[in-house]
């Protein structure tokens, strides 16, 4: 299915969904259901994992001789 068709049919879907909840009178919004959210982490000293850089370089698209990651600017950028 083409993108335009998905968008067109999708908008109909959204319309149908919004009509089904249109008469809801509630004003309170629920983002997360957990009320005991631990909003801050405990600060501690950073730990450097020795193998982490190697693992990251392994999945990088391209790496030069000095271990720098080579990236290509996406076609949609700029």
């Amino acid at each position, binding site marked *: *299915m083409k*993108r335009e068709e*998905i*968008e067109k*049919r*999708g*908008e109909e*879907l*959204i319309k*149908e*969904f*919004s009509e*089904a*909840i*249109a008469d*809801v009178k*509630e*004003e*309170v*919004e*629920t*983002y*997360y*259901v*957990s009320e*005991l*959210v*631990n*909003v*801050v*982490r*405990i600060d501690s000293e950073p730990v450097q994992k020795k193998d*982490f850089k190697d*693992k*990251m370089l*392994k*999945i990088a*698209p391209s790496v030069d001789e000095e271990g720098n990651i080579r*990236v290509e600017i*996406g076609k*949609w950028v700029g």
Partner: protein
Amino acid sequence: MEQIKSRKLTAIENTEAALARIKNLNPKINAFIELNEKGALDTAKWIDEKIKQGKKVGKLAGLIVAVKSNINVTGLHITCASKTLEDYVGTFDAAVVQRIKSEDGIIIGMTNMDEFAAGSSGETSAWGPTDNPSALGHIPGGSSSGSAAAVAVGICDLAIGSDTGGSIRNPASHCGIVGLKPTYGLVPRHGLIDLAMSLDQIGPMARDVYGCALLLEVIAGYNPRECTTLKVDLKDFTKKVGADIKGLKIGIAPQYEEVTVDKKIYQKIERAIEILKDLGARVVQVNLPNLKRALPAYYLINYVEFFSATRRFDGRRYGKRIEDVCGEEVLRRILLGSYISQKEYRGKYYHKAIKTRSVIKHETLEAFKQADVLISPTVPKLPHKFGAKLTPFEMYGYDLFTVPTNLSGICAGVVPVGKIDGIPIGLQIQGKPLDELTIFKIMEAYEKSTRELS
């Protein structure tokens, strides 16, 4: 597991047998999309060595565990069954995977799933659909399709899946296994690739209630790395299942029967309720007048959160831009999420949806003032056959009974209660927040009584 600990069966033997079964059955079922053959055998060897030396081993010693492909495991491909991430190899273990490994579980491989968990049928994977081993030719349900199918066909002992709107429970029902969506915050999400972060939970899948309780015991608990896990005392699930269910109040809403499409499903549920009554449970009527509003609210929220979560897949870090390579349903959710997120539509759609979420949550918690659990079918209709064309709305219809659990942040389990025309049917038991134990008790009581009957 007892056989492994008592050395009647070695962990290596269990692993080799699982690998042989996978090689034989996976080409037909397509439950796994990557195997961890060497890693699994190395772990098994290490566990056997520990047992031989009389050292203490973990709760999962030698058990074969499958992992859904949206949960990070070091060195394996975490693709979310999408071409977007086909080259991404996990650089760390998700918190749940660390816990499974520390309890000597053997990670056997990554399971198939609906692309980015955005599906209810198991058909949308870039690696092809998973078949339902319990009803061949029918969908296994989704999105944790491979995890459910692998457990059902016996090519692993346990599996983990993720559940945003029913993705553990729906395939558990269709494949005839036990699954549980934990209370939001009970199990760490660290290392799970988001579908909708305010709704996602990782949970256990197994052939029986004990296995499901055992795996939850291992993966549940506070994680200081994330802000939404709960600091709560862990329940000793496995020791407490088996207690009787006399006097427990089972809530039934008239809306459950009204919206069940295949009436034969509801007849199975009524029969299961009779069995629970015989075991001492009491039935009380509850009212859920907004049940039908849960589905539209859920999808509007899902679109927005998924759109936000996928903005990192812009091609720069993982090689491919998601919109260029993803399937139709993923593209639909991204486009609609983008549309709803626009300033002029946000209030009309998204804010209305999260207000409806408040209504669903209050209504559900209100029902728990009268009942200890709510009992319903897991899905309102039987799984379709491969090749059937469903509209998005028809596909979303599978989630009717499961999405209220996620919107309310509560827990729910699924246990098989029989078959219709050879297709398994699962009973859904929703529990109060952090009351997984009551769900396990009821599921175990049901499982035990029907095992005795058969």
